[in-house]
């Protein structure tokens, strides 16, 4: 049996949409929501409640509905959608939920994106007040954005059949929207919910762009879009939500807000039932009753909680044979899957629908998020905006004003005020439409609940929270609404208490015997309605989740099968496996080739900073622990940087380029941090220094060429360069031509081998790399990755910042006292070196560890203990393994470790717990290979 009216509603009756709900097929029309289509088919029972399993239906017609949660199964499974906000499409499959949905296990194929938008005036809500506000601002020449949650403008007008200027209100709405859309600089966003309002006019809004198209949604169009709106002025015309009255068994399907029933009638041509009882505290429900009666619903009775019913509306009801009883209350209901009778006093009235109106709550969520103070309006029984904000105006029923003409006047004033504040001059006034509305909700009675069974008097229908729960909270001594909200969970469901929060506050005030005006309302927080994580993530997923930084030589690495390691945002070649090789065999091969002949790696990711100015040397002397100003032009020095606490923060090389110019390198991961560090000291502490720092990290491609045959390879590609040990000493640099390209070649070694670092512009990196590979062929030149680099340097005891150090390690701990100047009067960290703590002999110090069994590889991070048997806990930990590798050069495994009093323990045997065993290790100096440095010069 259909519950559709013969005519009316903004639905396309000529088109039939098929959909499936809880396994049964139904039909509806374009323009329907899932909720309206279900009601048209007589389906009121949507799901069951989360804790008690009680049947629940549709309470409201929009996003304030507390109960109609569904899981949409097709086209894509999505949980926790409100049937009242799901636009119907052909093939929709959904089922009712019991409070909790189920996330899809499949990846969501839809696009989600974001867009920034800027405007002078943002208007939230395209009801009558918002439309007039937007029109006023637009005519003044302001850039206007108008957002509205619904699929069509009109707001409250969509739910009534009233006339404006003697014609259907929809025509007036259409005219205004048409003018707005044709005005340059005006953006009208439908299906868009402003869900968050932040400082400085920043508003987030979610637009549902293709949901309503169902299976026909184009894949290329973002399904949801987060609009990131920055506005100078905002007009909130967010309307008001009708609230119910709480009474016993107030949760049965068929019990609905009166205005929502009216909306279902006028917007969707749907009748909520055949025989209805109306329970109200104000006038507005009379209009719903009269409209429904005229559409054929048998209105059994209007129960008006006020002592006197309104005279004129009562007369109108009498003319239609509707009985009105004043001063009475609905005290309970009966029914199973739907309301079957209403109890009024001791009378039982059979019906299939109960319409309730307890007054109106202005939607002040965004105003409150904008830090606007709220004020309790005792006549309205609701919180209303309590102050004016410099950049936020409120208009229409969101202020508590419920008369249509007054609302549009507020809209006009707010629109003009906002435009003026944004620097525009409104011209002539936008004419306000004349309304024929008969009902206003003013002069209502504030009534939160009808006494009855507290256990079945539901305050928050979604949370199954009752009056009994509220009284339990106040009985336990809770007074703050914030505490009671958390204790009872009222207002924490998907609807954030849109219909229940105010009532809960009222019941609490009554229970505590305080005035509501003295109560601070709970804080409104974003989002106003649910926003999916997919929408918030937008395009920041997959390859766009985090930028991947690559060097100019990257394509070669990919082509040659490199596996990559993430270092910060960089992709660095980790190792280059040949067929059949795993990490260990590849790295042993790369290490051996490099130590025995020649290898090369891509070092372009090293941070590089150009330091210029008369005081550059003085500046670097302060930043590094060692002396840099004495470095001669043409020379290079290794340096360590400490924080003010004397702990190592970075290391690298310093090249003196000219009298007043240096080039310093930083570790890959710290490039930006060290540049910031330099700028911070220059700008805050030493602004008098004539120094400027410029990042040139990506200007240069850097290629370390390493191994005893590196000199031969370099000679082959750099014909102008005298590569002899005498002409090109260790820790010097030369500008020359490499492979026909201008290059700066530095003799630096991070492996102990004879090595060069070739720097060319990024544009030449790939070409020069290929030339080196070609020139190195006779020597079996071998590209190596970060793993081999780590092994080679570890064999030499060179620490890696962030691996051997962790912000608690001093240069002295690393055995680098030689890099700490004794002469310099001051440098960052110097003062800390004098602290007693820094001079304790039992600090953790960097040492080498050789497992007694040369085949055992210690896991990095392993703890180190003193005894070969673990004592009762707590066990004293001496330190931990920082690096551990098998070594081709040593023919065994080895490790670096930070060990308490490590420098004094050399030669001792310590123990490393690995799974159930205690592995004995010998403590050695950290330098394990070529201690004499014989290999440095080739």
């Amino acid at each position, binding site marked *: 049996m259909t519950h559709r009216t013969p005519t009316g509603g903004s639905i396309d009756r000529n088109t039939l949409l098929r959909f499936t709900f809880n396994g049964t097929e139904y039909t509806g029309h374009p323009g329907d929501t899932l909720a309206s289509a279900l009601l048209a088919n007589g389906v009121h029972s949507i799901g069951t409640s989360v804790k008690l399993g009680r049947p629940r239906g549709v309470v409201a017609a929009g996003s304030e509905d507390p109960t109609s949660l569904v899981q949409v199964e097709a086209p894509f499974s999505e949980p926790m959608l409100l049937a009242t906000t799901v636009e119907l499409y052909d093939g929709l499959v959904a089922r009712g939920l019991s409070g909790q949905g189920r996330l899809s296990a499949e990846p969501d194929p839809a*696009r989600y*994106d*974001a*867009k*920034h*938008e*800027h405007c002078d005036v943002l208007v939230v809500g395209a009801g009558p007040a918002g439309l007039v506000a937007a029109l006023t601002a637009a005519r003044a020449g302001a*850039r206007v954005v108008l957002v509205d949650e619904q699929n069509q403008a009109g707001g409250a007008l969509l739910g009534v059949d009233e006339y404006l200027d003697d014609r259907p209100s929809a025509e007036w709405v259409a005219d205004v929207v048409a003018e707005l859309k044709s005005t340059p600089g005006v953006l009208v966003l439908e299906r868009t919910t402003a869900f968050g309002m932040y400082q400085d006019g920043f508003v987030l809004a979610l637009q549902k762009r293709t949901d309503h198209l169902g299976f026909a949604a*184009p894949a*290329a*169009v*973002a399904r949801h879009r987060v609009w*990131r709106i*920055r506005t100078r002025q905002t007009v909130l015309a967010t309307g008001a939500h009708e609230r119910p009255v709480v009474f016993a068994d107030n949760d049965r399907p068929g019990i609905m807000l009166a205005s929502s029933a009216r909306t279902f009638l006028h917007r969707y041509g749907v009748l909520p039932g055949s025989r209805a009882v109306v329970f109200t505290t104000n006038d507005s429900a009379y209009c719903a009753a009269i409209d429904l009666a005229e559409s054929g619903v048998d209105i059994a009775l209007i129960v008006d909680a006020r002592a006197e019913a309104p005279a004129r509306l009562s007369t109108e009801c009498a003319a239609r044979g509707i009985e009105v009883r004043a001063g009475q209350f609905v005290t309970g209901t009966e029914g199973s899957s739907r309301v079957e009778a209403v109890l009024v006093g001791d009378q039982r009235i059979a019906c299939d629908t109960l319409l309730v109106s307890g007054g109106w709550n202005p939607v002040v969520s965004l105003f409150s998020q904008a830090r606007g103070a709220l004020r309790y309006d005792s006549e309205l029984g609701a919180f209303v905006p309590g102050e004016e904000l410099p950049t936020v105006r409120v208009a229409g029923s969101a202020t508590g004003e419920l008369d249509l003409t007054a609302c549009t006047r507020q809209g006009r004033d707010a629109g003009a005020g906002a435009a003026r504040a944004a620097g525009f001059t409104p011209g002539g006034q936008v004419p306000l439409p004349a309304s024929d509305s008969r009902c206003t909700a003013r002069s209502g009675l504030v009534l939160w609940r009808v006494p009855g069974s507290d256990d079945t008097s539901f305050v928050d229908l979604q949370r199954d929270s009752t009056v009994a729960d509220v009284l339990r909270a106040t009985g336990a001594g809770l007074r703050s609404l914030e505490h009671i909200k958390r204790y009872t969970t009222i207002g924490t469901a998907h609807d954030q208490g849109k219909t229940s929060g105010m009532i809960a506050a009222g019941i609490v005030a009554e229970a505590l015997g305080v005035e509501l005006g003295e109560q601070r309302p709970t804080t409104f927080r974003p989002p106003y309605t649910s926003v999916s994580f997919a929408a918030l993530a937008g*395009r*920041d997923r997959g*390859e*766009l989740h*985090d*930028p*991947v*930084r*690559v*060097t*100019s030589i990257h*394509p070669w690495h990919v082509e040659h099968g490199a596996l990559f390691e993430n270092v910060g945002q*960089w992709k660095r070649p980790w190792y280059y496996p040949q067929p059949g090789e795993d990490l260990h065999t590849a790295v042993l091969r790369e290490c051996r080739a490099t130590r025995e002949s020649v290898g090369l790696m891509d070092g372009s*990711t090293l941070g590089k900073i*150009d330091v*210029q*100015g*008369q005081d550059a040397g003085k500046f670097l002397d302060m930043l590094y622990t060692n002396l840099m100003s004495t470095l001669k032009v043409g020379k290079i020095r290794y340096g360590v940087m400490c924080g003010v606490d004397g702990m190592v923060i970075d290391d690298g090389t310093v090249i003196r380029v000219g009298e007043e110019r240096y080039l310093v390198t930083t570790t890959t991961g710290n490039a930006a941090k060290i540049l910031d560090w330099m700028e911070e000291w220059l700008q805050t502490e030493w602004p008098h220094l*004539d120094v*400027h720092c*410029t*990042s*040139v*990290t*990506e*200007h*240069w491609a850097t290629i370390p060429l390493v191994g005893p045959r590196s000199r031969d390879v370099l000679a082959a590609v750099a014909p102008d360069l005298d590569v002899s040990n005498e002409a090109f000493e260790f820790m010097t640099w030369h500008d020359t031509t490499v492979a026909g390209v201008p290059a700066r070649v530095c003799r630096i070694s991070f492996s102990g081998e004879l090595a060069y670092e070739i720097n060319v*512009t*990024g*544009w*030449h*990196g*790939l*070409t020069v790399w290929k030339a080196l590979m070609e020139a190195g062929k006779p020597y079996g030149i071998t590209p190596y990755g970060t793993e081999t680099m780590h092994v080679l340097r570890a064999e030499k005891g060179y620490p890696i910042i962030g691996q051997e150090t962790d912000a608690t390690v001093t240069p002295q701990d690393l055995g680098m006292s030689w890099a700490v100047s004794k002469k310099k009067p001051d440098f960052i960290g110097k003062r800390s070196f004098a602290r007693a703590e820094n001079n304790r002999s039992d600090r953790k110090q960097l040492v080498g560890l050789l497992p007694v069994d040369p085949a055992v590889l210690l896991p990095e991070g392993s703890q180190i203990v003193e005894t070969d048997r673990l004592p009762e806990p707590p066990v004293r930990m001496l330190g931990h393994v920082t690096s551990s590798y098998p070594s081709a050069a040593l023919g065994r495994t080895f490790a670096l470790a930070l060990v308490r009093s490590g420098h004094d323990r050399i030669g001792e045997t310590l123990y490393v717990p690995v799974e159930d065993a205690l592995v004995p290790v010998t403590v050695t100096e950290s330098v394990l290979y070529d201690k004499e440095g014989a290999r440095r010069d080739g």
Partner: protein
Amino acid sequence: MTVSPLAAWTDRLAALAPALDVTEVPFRSQLTVRVSDPDAIAAMGDALGVRFPAVPCTFSAGTGEFGAVEVLWLGPDEFLVTASPDLQVTIEEVLRGALQDVRGSVVDTSAQRTTVVLQGPRARDVLAHGCSVDLHPASAPRGTCVQTLLARTGIVLQVNDDGYTILVRSSFAEYFAAWLADAATEYLAVP
């Protein structure tokens, strides 16, 4: 042989037309200049034939000995000079000459960033998906120059008469291109 950061992206970027015309202009000469002394700034401008921008967040353009040169305001004492390829060494010398012994610095940063020209009817829309700067002509007229974020990469953005010039760090160039191609998706399907 030189290889530009977006060499591998030429075809994929060309496929974004006509909604979006994206062209990498590789190997441009670029020099980062730090200077605050007004006389030195004027001397540098004279040497290049283009007045350095005095207004924050703008760039100036001119033609002189080095052809068309642009000077971008990047900070209170920081400018980026851009010119045709292969001029960086000479321009660096000329700027050093103009700077003399006044406090400041000149650094060749030509390969630090690559240059991308973005035009077409959807250019502003596409940028709005990742850039929070208001690019409405009323707010960002021709000559605007800002350092900002596009999605998750820093960029320098110049507003031209017929579109935008974007400078992006070389290592981020492929991310930038991938982001651009993705952001244009909707405008290719629905012109």
